[in-house]
């Protein structure tokens, strides 16, 4: 089902002209209301009235996470605080969090975009949504919540944590939809199994997973263990929260970006050059409808690629493929670009291994060393040292073959890697360069 037939199936030409109009308006608005943008536009010598075509977007300056930090907490807001009805903040794994604000209208638009996501996943008002995204400063919980209510579905606002209780409610309340991070979905499956619950017989039919990069292998594993169809959702608090893009159930091939609200570009993370559709690079978003926290060319650091071919579901928007990594997660080890997602692919090929790992880069003398720590799970644990050593050796070889870099593989105890909001930190770079 398509939630907003008019906007989601707008002919490309009409969509392009809508985007251009909105881009002109937002450029005008940020120039006059956000000090940071006035300065940034002036520095590159561009005025809002210079935007004559969508191609002129390239002339506008980028906005980075650091810019948001520099303007902490409210410096990037485009409306007075009296018009702000809510703030959220992103997880500050490094340094200060970034704070985002919403007007009443922003919340309404967000709810609608989330409702579009749910409709794209095939949900209706008959569905019961188990929402295990964290409620609070993190946008996941409330973003999903408002969208689900907008659609008219029933929400179980369980939030994160208390896994055993979640499994009890999954059995008792009979939700048909699970919303959480993919790693939490796997965690639920594992704990359920330990509790002797047959997680395949729950009423769950659809899972909407996002908030962190994941592989197709993980997707298959979640689908098998929880007996549901897993769909990918994309969003980040700076740009809005969840609901920027959503995979449709009809094609299950890439996430539709709601282009009436966001302009997407792919750029080369090194040079900042715009890439052609289909080329892999960093996703950059410009918001078109946000009042409180408009962003021009925000660099997400998420690596993906665009799919411009028409989709069989009837939506006319471009799609982005699954996030394959983070441009700032990328580490260069002895001259080789290493993405954690590549290491993850190698790990996930080993039966029974779970994607709980961490890359530790150090410099000994002049030589960089890479250590890959992987949590041992019950399934791969053997009481024979030899078997574990064979596995370590195989992983070392596979990483070398696939990434072209020598890593020391180290098995560690379950749950011993540091987690932030349920996600393991993928890279720890101890080099002081």
């Amino acid at each position, binding site marked *: 089902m398509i939630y907003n037939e008019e906007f989601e199936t707008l002919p490309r030409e009409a969509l392009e002209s809508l985007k251009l109009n909105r881009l002109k308006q937002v450029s005008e608005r940020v120039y006059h209301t956000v000090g940071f943008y006035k300065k940034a536009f002036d520095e590159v010598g561009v005025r809002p009235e210079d935007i004559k075509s969508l191609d002129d977007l390239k002339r506008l300056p980028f906005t980075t996470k650091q810019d948001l930090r520099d303007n902490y907490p409210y410096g990037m807001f485009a409306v007075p605080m009296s018009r702000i009805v809510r703030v959220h903040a992103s997880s500050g794994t490094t340094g200060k969090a970034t704070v985002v604000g919403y007007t009443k209208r922003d919340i309404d638009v967000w709810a609608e975009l989330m409702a579009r996501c749910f409709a794209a996943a095939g949900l209706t008002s008959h569905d019961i949504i188990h929402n295990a995204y964290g409620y609070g400063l993190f946008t996941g919980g409330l973003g999903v919540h408002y969208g689900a209510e907008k659609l008219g579905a029933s929400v179980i606002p369980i939030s994160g944590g208390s896994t055993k209780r979640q499994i009890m409610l999954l059995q008792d309340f009979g939700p048909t939809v699970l919303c959480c991070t993919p790693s939490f979905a796997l965690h639920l499956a594992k704990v359920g199994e330990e509790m002797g619950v047959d997680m395949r017989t729950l009423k769950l039919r659809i899972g909407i997973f996002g908030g962190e990069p994941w592989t197709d292998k993980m997707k298959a594993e979640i689908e098998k263990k929880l007996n549901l169809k897993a769909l990918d959702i994309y969003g980040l608090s700076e740009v809005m929260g969840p609901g920027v893009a959503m995979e449709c159930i009809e094609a299950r091939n890439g996430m539709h970006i709601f282009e009436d609200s966001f302009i997407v570009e792919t750029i080369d993370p090194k040079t900042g050059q715009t890439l052609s559709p289909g080329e892999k690079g960093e996703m950059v978003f410009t918001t078109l409808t946000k009042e409180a926290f408009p962003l021009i060319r925000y660099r997400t650091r998420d690596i993906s690629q665009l799919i411009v071919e028409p989709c069989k579901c009837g939506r006319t928007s471009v799609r982005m493929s699954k996030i394959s990594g983070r441009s700032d997660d990328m580490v260069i080890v002895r001259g080789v670009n290493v993405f954690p997602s590549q290491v993850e692919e190698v790990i996930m090929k080993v039966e029974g291994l779970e994607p709980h790992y961490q890359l530790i880069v150090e410099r000994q003398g002049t030589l960089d060393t890479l250590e890959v720590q992987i949590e041992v799970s*019950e399934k791969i*644990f053997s009481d024979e040292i030899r078997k*574990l050593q064979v596995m370590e050796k195989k992983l070392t070889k596979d990483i070398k073959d696939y990434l072209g870099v020598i890593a020391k593989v180290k098995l560690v105890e379950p749950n011993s890697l540091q987690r932030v909001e349920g996600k393991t930190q993928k890279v720890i770079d101890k080099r002081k360069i």
Partner: protein
Amino acid sequence: MKVEQISIFLENKPGGLSLVTKTLKDANINIRALTLADTSDFGILRLIVDHVDKAKKALKEAGLAVGLTHVVAVEVPDKPGGLNGIIEILSKAGVNVEYMYAFIERSGQNAVIIFRFDQVEQAIDVLLKNGVTVLPGEKVYSL
């Protein structure tokens, strides 16, 4: 005739072993035998306890990776050559020993050795046919 042995994955770092012993103490579990095999990075702690299921549950809840293996407890005459006799029986029959370790308690006048075999059933068969005493689990847990 098999004995259930608990194995635990441990990193070689301070506090690992004490988490195990404390968890078992809190769960009121008695350790009957214990051995640690390790490499430079990690170790595997092998345990025989009086209440296997209870111990396994407590250790899992403490967040450890726990495995269950079947081992064989053999009475060995406590005299020179006692162990050698048993090893010879096994090697003659082509039974491969993965590892073994001694049990703390005795069974009457005899020492007790825990064996881990690839082919458990076959090994038990060979031992029994050669008149070796193999102790059943219930007996071992309460020695």
